[in-house]
């Protein structure tokens, strides 16, 4: 009789897998039956969602805020935001597609070759109110040849161009960017550019002397129509002067600029049915609309402004935002989760339950692992629910009030899952610190301070940009990079800053930043393990 009751217990302890499953179940039961912890997690989800939606509503419009008097209530900005919504490129991203285009239709396969002999321009003069202009170029002022599916802004294209500071480039579909010959173009050191179309494939070449050609790149523009628009273009992105802001991040002066390129030796092959050149400004609604061209003999002088490139948040001046904004509640949710996770272990010490736990399961590492898995999973689910809801409902709330940058579903998935993972790893970190210190107040303070305070110091405070970069690179706060919505493009000059309504640009790449937090958590867990094994309970 007695043997009958004892024997079923032994196999459970001896076989490792069963033992661990039981341990997990025990920890899960501990978590589930403490009402305060469950409430804490519900609170985490609610504040995460609530603050996100608050931010979505609160961003509604400062359209007229430049005048200094933003008197009107939040609703005043409905009209002005939709007018400036940028076109969408073939990849689904918001783009700027405004430039001066001297074009002819090209039917079927063919090619165009030109020589560029100069690239000059005008930028705003630095003194005074910025009304005047002075000669000069912005780094990404560009001019060259382009083959484009249509004159519709946002349509597919491939282009070979000379730039002010970045040499010859081949760019396609707004995000593609390949470097060709370096150096600036001058009368004595001209550049030859060639684009060849063969079906959907466009190949770009450059040369210094028209004898030795080098292939810069090949791109496939899917769905390119039979007849495309091809010709010369000039574009010059807005001039941005960044003043090192101390106390409010970076401040930028944004003003239009323009550039002028001189082309000659224009030669074409293939079928060009029109026979004459047409010059017009593409996408003038969004750009500044400066442009024109002059043809004398074989020589074309083309002036343009605007840019053919992705648009990034903050470039247009803050009437736009990304889904990152809706996740501002992550900070509040994190605090609640950290409190619960730290208490998950410290309460055992305070109540003495840890002795029972370790008597039942003497292998201490497994206890910590079970605890970490339970609290990590619970925090992950809470973070996932809250982040997904915040992104979905926040986008719906904000749309129509302000421009919300489109992002691909993959990016959205990365942001939501990444946020949930961030919450989960923070919970494990809190558990580990709690195990080390055994005191909830100290553990909670330390974990909140190492995750939230660096973000605050790096984004909102008085630290200069270089110091802030450094802080956001090495502290656990680097993990918020996982919420970055729009990539940082090397071919777009903008104020890439971590803060603000649409930024979310961190010094590290999304998953690299997340890895920093994981590294800290791993160190903490290792230390906790060592201390848990060595110390008496």
């Amino acid at each position, binding site marked *: 009789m007695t043997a009958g009751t004892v024997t079923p217990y032994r196999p459970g302890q001896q076989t490792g897998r069963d033992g661990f499953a039981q341990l997990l179940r025990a920890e899960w039961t501990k978590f589930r039956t403490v009402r*305060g912890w469950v409430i*804490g997690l519900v609170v985490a989800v609610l504040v995460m969602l609530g*603050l996100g939606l*608050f*931010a979505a509503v*609160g*961003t*509604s*419009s*400062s359209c007229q*805020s430049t005048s200094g008097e*933003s008197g009107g209530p*939040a609703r005043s900005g409905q009209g002005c935001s939709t007018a400036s919504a940028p076109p969408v490129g073939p990849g689904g991203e918001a783009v700027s597609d405004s430039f001066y285009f001297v074009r002819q239709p090209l039917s079927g396969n063919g090619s165009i070759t030109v020589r560029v002999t100069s690239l000059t321009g005008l930028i705003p003069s630095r003194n005074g109110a910025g009304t005047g202009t002075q000669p000069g170029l912005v780094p990404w002022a560009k001019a060259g040849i382009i083959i484009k599916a249509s004159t519709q802004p946002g349509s597919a294209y491939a282009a070979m161009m000379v730039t002010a500071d970045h040499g010859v480039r081949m760019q396609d579909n707004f995000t593609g960017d390949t470097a060709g010959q370096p150096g600036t173009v001058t009368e004595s050191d001209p550049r030859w550019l060639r684009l060849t179309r063969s079906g959907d494939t466009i190949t770009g070449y450059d040369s210094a002397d028209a004898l030795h050609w080098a292939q810069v790149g090949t791109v496939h523009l899917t769905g390119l129509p039979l007849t495309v628009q091809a010709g010369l273009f000039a574009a010059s992105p807005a001039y941005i002067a960044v003043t*090192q*802001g*101390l*106390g409010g991040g970076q401040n930028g002066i944004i003003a239009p600029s323009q550039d002028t390129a001189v082309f000659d030796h224009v030669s074409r092959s293939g079928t060009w049915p029109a026979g004459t050149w047409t010059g017009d400004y593409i996408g003038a609604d969004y750009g500044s609309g400066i442009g024109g061209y002059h043809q004398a003999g074989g020589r074309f002088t083309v002036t343009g402004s605007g840019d053919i490139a992705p648009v990034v948040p903050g470039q247009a001046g*803050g*009437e736009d*935002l990304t889904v990152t*904004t809706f996740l*501002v509640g992550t*900070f*509040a949710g994190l*605090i*609640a989760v*950290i*409190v619960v996770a*730290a*208490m998950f272990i*410290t309460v055992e010490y*305070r109540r003495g339950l840890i002795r029972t736990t370790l008597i039942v399961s003497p292998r201490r590492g497994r206890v910590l692992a079970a605890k970490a898995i339970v609290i990590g999973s619970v925090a992950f689910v809470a973070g996932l629910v809250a982040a997904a809801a915040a992104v979905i409902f926040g986008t719906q709330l904000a749309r129509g009030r*302000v421009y919300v940058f489109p992002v691909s579903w993959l990016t959205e998935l990365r942001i939501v899952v990444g946020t949930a993972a961030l919450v989960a790893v923070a919970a494990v970190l809190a558990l580990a610190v709690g195990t080390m210190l055994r*005191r*909830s*107040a*100290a*553990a*909670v*303070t330390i974990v*909140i*301070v190492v995750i*939230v*305070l660096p*973000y*605050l*110091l790096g*984004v*909102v*405070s*008085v*630290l*200069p940009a*270089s*110091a802030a970069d*450094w802080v956001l690179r090495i502290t656990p706060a680097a993990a918020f990079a996982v919420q970055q919505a729009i990539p940082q493009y090397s071919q777009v000059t903008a104020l890439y800053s971590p*803060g*603000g*309504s649409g930024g979310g640009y961190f010094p590290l790449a999304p998953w690299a930043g997340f890895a920093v937090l994981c590294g800290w958590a791993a160190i903490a867990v290792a230390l906790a393990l060592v201390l848990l094994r060595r110390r008496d309970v």
Partner: protein
Amino acid sequence: MRLPVPANTVPTDTVSANTRAAPRRHPFGLAEALHAEWTKTRTTASTGWLLLAAIALTVAVGAAAAAGTSCPSGVVCQVDPAKVSLTGIDLGQAVVAMVAVLAISNEYSTGMIRITLSAMPRRTVVLAAKAAVLSGLVLAAGTIAVLGSVLAGRLILSGHGFTPAHGYELLSLDSPTVLRAAAGSVLYLALVALLSLGVATAVRDSAVAIGIVLGLLYLFPIVANVVGNAHWHRHLEQIGPMTAGLAIQATTDLTSLPISPWAGLGVLAAWAAAALLAGGLVLRLRDA
């Protein structure tokens, strides 16, 4: 045989004499409460270490912020030397909050609160005594931390070219605005301590209390930074205990502040008063 007799007679007499005499002479007055709280605080090792840590961290972060601040020559940077030097308060306040939370929640977690309230049944007096002892300690530690930060900031910033020769005033307590920033920061820490004490009295559990306090402090600036509407942004900064309270640290560009320095400290004081009121009410109405 020999032992029990003296042991029974002598101590019993003195103990009974003491217990009888003391409560009659001073029926749980504020002075006794203060003395009791001071003894409890004094004999808890962690308080001293935490206050030391608060001082060290405040000065260290302030010095690091000053060391990270530089200005390319030929450009006039809008640097507020006092604010940069006192950046450490952002971190120091977390430790101060912890000291304040532990002052009450430790009593709950060890059950000491029952003894305290049996000895001194007037609960508001107990809370007042705790608040007074805590404020005194934090004011003392805060003064050291702020003086250290200002000194470090002065030395480091002048080494980085922020000297009168380049058009920057040397950080000095002679200047009324710098004095305001320094004294205000000390008061800020004391008010954060009172806010934390109030919250901790209301919720009792140290982890929950510190979570609430740090959330109240840190969330306002983060959310305000994301909210694009200038109106809302300003309002959030005006009502946040940290954003409003730290307005006291500004010495330059005062017109761009969301709230004037002393009014900002007043907002924090209102938060602290509300928290203490809530804590006091809960303490009176609830069983210990």
